[in-house]
């Protein structure tokens, strides 16, 4: 029944084993040749220059556990254990910079190594080989799928976590003098973050009764049309609350982008650096900073 070559008559009807039986035979074979096959696999991994971030010993140790989980998954057709292992493995290797293609690559390599060994074993009995492969291939593909999906999921989880961390850390509204706020922006601004920044700033203006706000964007590498327009809107909304906004630290690249895309910056009060911005803000608020000697 595992035959798929379409010939209506089977010359050896007595030898149609159940797929599970075939799998058992297969698993026995893989267990028997564990040492040799694993060795071969590790050699192939090193040859193809996968997992370069890991040492030889580590690769060997991981290869052993992956091999055993793999054979176990083939045997029991239960993928939960493998899935858990894949997630656990991903957790350990993602921080070391292992890429998706490497993880998928090693699992596919193992599949190939095992397939080859099956070819070698059953090369004299072509029909049996066919049946064995019929049982092996779907299971092997499912395993490869499970591992890849597990890795990607784990990676996405890590990315989400980091994004949240960045978001939480990224919007301090600081009061440096009576009625003077500073909003240092660092990193990439996406529309969602821009919105959050605006909300925090406007609320900050209200609670601190600020008259002047310095937005420092020294730490912003790039800015697109949406974000630039949002910045202009933030400036205008702050004005509606009675606060003047000074933008400082526009990098040459951002300045060029803004001019090229034609964002109307006429309403924005810009100063070269944060120090200059604070000085101008102090002037607006009527402060004068003097050394003690000057005051004597």
């Amino acid at each position, binding site marked *: 029944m595992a035959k798929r070559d379409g010939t209506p008559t089977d010359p050896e009807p007595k030898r149609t084993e159940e797929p599970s039986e075939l799998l058992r035979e297969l698993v026995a074979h893989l267990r028997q040749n564990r040492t040799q096959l694993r060795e071969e696999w590790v050699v192939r991994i090193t040859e193809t220059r996968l997992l370069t971030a890991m040492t030889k010993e580590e690769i060997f140790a991981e290869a052993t556990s992956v091999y055993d989980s793999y054979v176990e998954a083939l045997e029991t057709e239960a993928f939960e254990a493998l899935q858990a292992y894949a997630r656990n493995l991903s957790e350990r290797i993602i921080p070391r910079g292992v890429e998706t293609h490497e993880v998928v690559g090693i699992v596919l390599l193992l599949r190939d190594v095992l397939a080859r060994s099956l070819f070698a074993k059953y090369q004299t009995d072509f029909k049996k080989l066919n049946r064995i492969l019929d049982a092996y291939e779907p299971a092997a593909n499912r395993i490869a799928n499970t591992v890849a999906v597990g890795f990607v999921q784990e990676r996405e989880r890590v990315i989400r976590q980091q994004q949240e961390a960045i978001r939480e850390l990224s919007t301090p509204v600081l009061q440096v003098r009576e009625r003077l706020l500073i909003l240092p922006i660092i990193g990439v601004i996406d529309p969602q973050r821009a919105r959050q920044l*605006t*909300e925090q700033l*406007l*609320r900050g*203006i*209200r609670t601190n*009764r600020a*008259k002047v706000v310095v937005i420092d964007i020294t730490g912003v590498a790039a800015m697109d049309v949406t974000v630039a327009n949002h910045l202009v*809107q*933030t400036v*205008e*909304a*702050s*004005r*509606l*609350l*009675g*606060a003047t906004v000074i933008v400082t630290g526009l990098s040459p690249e951002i300045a060029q982008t803004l001019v090229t895309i034609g964002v109307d910056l006429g309403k924005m009060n810009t100063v070269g650096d944060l120090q200059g911005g604070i000085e101008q803000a102090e002037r607006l608020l009527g402060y004068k900073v003097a050394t003690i000697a000057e005051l004597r």
Partner: protein
Amino acid sequence: MEVPILKQGAVLIATFQAALSDADLNQLRMGLVQQVVKFRSRAVIVDVTAMDVMDSFASRTLREIALMIRLRGAETVIVGIQPEVAFAMVQLGLTLEGVATALDLEEGLAYLNEEFKTTS
């Protein structure tokens, strides 16, 4: 609901309530423009603290009030715009250009005092 207009020295103060119909707004506009000359006021403060929603008609009326008052020889300060309202207005393109704004009534009065000092 009619909006009361209070006189405080050389300043007229009008406080918006939450739900104002378009007719109320028109009435307020006429009232302010008439009284500003009648009382020889130097400035008008419009307090919108109670408004948590500002539609386009209301903010256009605010701007018109400011421009008309200027033509009548006085100055207008809009005070108490809520943060959410401010951002919503800007996104609708209602930026009240050329109109002075302040955080609240106290700030508005302080701003006007400074202005009076420099102009008189």
